[in-house]
């Protein structure tokens, strides 16, 4: 039985002149886990918003037999309140007309916890939770609202591998209890491990729906983007050259050499963010350091400005004489960058209308143009489709060949292992371990260090 059936819907956004969806159809059976995959900007999030009812479509038919609940990429929780209070917001059980019945709420939520086998202390403040736990709170909130259809927008993007594994188990237990689940994800593992079927979208259109069991992993990736996952072959035989740059983190000196990639990783609040802030400061005072921020939407680009304004932001003085900007020079320069790095956009378009992959390309293009010796790349492939991520890996490879040094800060253990000469693992604001021999590095090993299970 189809719990959701969408027929030939279209959606046009006048603000940035994009056809987000055109003639899109989707059928979802009750009780299945259905993944929706596609490149950045394929219209997945818009489709989910339409199913959830927060966005209206321009034309087409939608039939939904049940209540929908959405867990979006960015959590909507009030940090200073506890779990219980966050869950019941908007749905508070009431006694004596206007008093919130916390006892009843407590019982109701506990029932849910027991039924699904979750463990959480309801009195904990949100700010004390890990990302995975926050997500669990969002899920319980949606269940508490009696939703039958749960929609997840890139749920595992911000999670560590360990937490992502837990999350997948959670989804399976939700499925057992007859909830229907729709999930958007870029991670092959989410799809291969738990989904029953997946639907591929490209440029706002329906491509096909595939039963997951009938294909193998590499097929999924080909289905998703038309390209295979390339395992970047970092040439580890290139010996690191002379010293480029060093900094001290928590009494430990980290030195970066030519042709060297140093990976720094960890889970959740391990201190990676604070380290990024420190390194950002360093990059401001040193022209030889190029910095690609992890928060590319606010630090990497200016969403409300024209693309060319974003591209020249680091060095506007280069395009000026006596303080006067030479817009013709800026235009030529921006056009050059756009063609060189294959950014899909025009120099005068609003930066915010670009898709995630193209935004990241713009950031990297700007940093590469600086021609620094040292690169600080923070979660460079986060939330980016496979094709764009591959391009970024290739770029890093060629930088290494050009004797540049690269600091790779990333929560993605696999990425760090693939690229680095050595890896530092952070745990609670300090370096818990250094892996120098990359042949022994596995995501599991890094996972154990990151969660503090092994301590050196």
């Amino acid at each position, binding site marked *: 039985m189809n719990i959701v059936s969408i027929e030939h819907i279209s959606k046009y956004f006048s603000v940035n002149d994009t056809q987000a969806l055109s003639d899109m159809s989707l059928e979802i059976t009750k009780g299945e886990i259905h993944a929706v995959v596609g490149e950045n900007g394929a*219209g997945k999030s818009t489709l989910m918003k339409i199913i959830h009812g927060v966005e209206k479509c321009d034309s087409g038919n939608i039939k939904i037999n049940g209540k929908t609940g959405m867990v979006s990429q960015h959590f909507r929780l009030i940090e200073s309140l506890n779990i219980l209070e966050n869950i019941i917001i908007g749905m508070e059980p009431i006694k004596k007309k206007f008093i919130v019945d916390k006892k009843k709420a407590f019982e109701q939520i506990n029932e849910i916890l027991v039924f699904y086998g979750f463990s959480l202390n309801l009195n904990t403040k949100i700010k004390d939770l890990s990302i995975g736990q926050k997500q669990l709170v969002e899920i319980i909130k949606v269940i508490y609202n009696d939703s039958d259809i749960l929609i997840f927008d890139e749920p595992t993007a911000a999670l560590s591998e360990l937490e992502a594994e837990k999350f997948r188990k959670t989804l399976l237990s939700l499925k057992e209890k007859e909830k229907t689940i729709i999930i958007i994800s870029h991670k092959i593992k989410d799809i291969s491990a738990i989904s029953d079927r997946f639907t591929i979208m490209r440029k706002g259109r329906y491509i096909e729906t595939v039963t997951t069991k009938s294909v193998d992993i590499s097929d999924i990736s080909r289905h998703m983007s038309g390209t295979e996952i390339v395992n970047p072959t970092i040439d580890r035989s290139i010996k690191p050259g002379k010293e480029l740059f060093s900094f001290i983190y928590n009494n430990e000196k980290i030195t970066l050499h030519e042709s060297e990639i140093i990976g720094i990783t960890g889970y959740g609040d391990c201190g990676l963010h604070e380290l990024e802030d420190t390194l950002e400061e360093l990059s401001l005072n040193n022209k030889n350091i190029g910095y690609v921020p992890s928060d590319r939407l*606010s630090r*990497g680009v200016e969403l409300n400005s024209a693309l060319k304004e974003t591209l020249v932001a680091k060095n506007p003085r280069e395009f000026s004489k006596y303080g006067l900007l030479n817009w013709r020079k800026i235009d030529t320069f921006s056009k050059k960058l756009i063609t060189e790095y294959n950014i899909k956009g025009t120099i005068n378009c609003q930066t915010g209308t670009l898709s995630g992959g193209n935004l990241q390309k713009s950031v990297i293009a700007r940093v590469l143009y600086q021609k620094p010796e040292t690169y600080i790349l923070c979660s460079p492939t986060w939330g980016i489709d496979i094709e764009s991520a591959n391009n970024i890996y290739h770029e890093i490879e060629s930088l290494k060949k050009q004797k540049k040094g690269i600091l790779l800060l990333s929560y993605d253990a696999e990425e760090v292992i693939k690229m680095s000469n050595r890896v530092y693992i952070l745990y609670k604001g300090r370096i818990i371990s250094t892996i120098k021999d990359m042949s022994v590095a596995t995501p599991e090993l890094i996972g154990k260090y990151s969660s503090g299970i092994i301590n050196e």
Partner: protein
Amino acid sequence: MNNILKKPALLIVILTIVPTVILVFILSKDPIYSLYVFFTGPFSNKFNFGNMLNRTSPLILTSLGAFIALKSNSFNLGGEGQVYLGATVTGLILTNTAFIPSSLSLLLTIVIVLLTTGFVTFVSSILEEKYNVNSLISTYLISMILIYICDYFVTNLFLLENSNILTTKPIPEIFELKSLLPPSSLSSGFIIAVTIVIMFSFLLKNTVWGYEFTISGRNNAFSKSMGINNKKYKILGLTISGALHGLAGYILVTGSYHSVISGFYMNLGWNGLSSALVAGSRPIMILISSLFFSYLDSGASSATVLSDVTIELSTIIKSVIFFVISSKLIKDSLIKKGNKT
């Protein structure tokens, strides 16, 4: 309807004119004539037209001041007091410097006006940077204090005796701005104001300074990451905003009233703010929105003189505009949120 929604400026004009028409129909015995006078009054003769333009000159400067503050991501709610301060300083210097050459004292006046009013908002922005005092509040409170201080000078120490209004003695004729369209009061202040807007428009668009100023105001995190000094531009934005309000006060005295009158700054600050909000993101639009505001004002005065409509009407219309603008801002933020794909 969708097409209209895409052009907020047009929507604002429609949403203000419709209630005006309805109000006139309710309040007037001869609504058609009143409306006719209301809308054509400002263009009926040289006198009315010139007066309308002259009314616009200080408004253009206050709008530009508010605009610059908004661009640097702060609010200057103290426009009223800053205009009054600029005017009072102008009046006091020009009426009391007969002993130095006139061109020197004119130059001195402008410099002192810019410095004093700029300093007032500079203090607000420093308070914000150093002690986390919201400039939205501090600009307003400081401006209220300034109004009382200026009133003390105007209505006590320098009050012109035997006058039926609270005013200082007129400034010497030599300091009055050149009249452009007699018999109307249009003065060269209008040209000054327009020139300054064009100048800022150019600065913002075509200089490194303007570029960094704009980017810094739009996105702090980004500009910090690009090595732009956010603090500097934020302080500068509010300081320039204050100085421009002071200059509006200067033009008010030298171009329109030729003396400092208690309360004559009334609404210049607030109208400047709403006019800046209507103008949106392009400085050149300030000219159009300021003209629109004083057109409404002048229309209301014509209607008051020639028909049975009262002056309160224009105030009501301005409140309507404020409502419409604030809803427009809400709408903009909704559009941005809803469209992330």
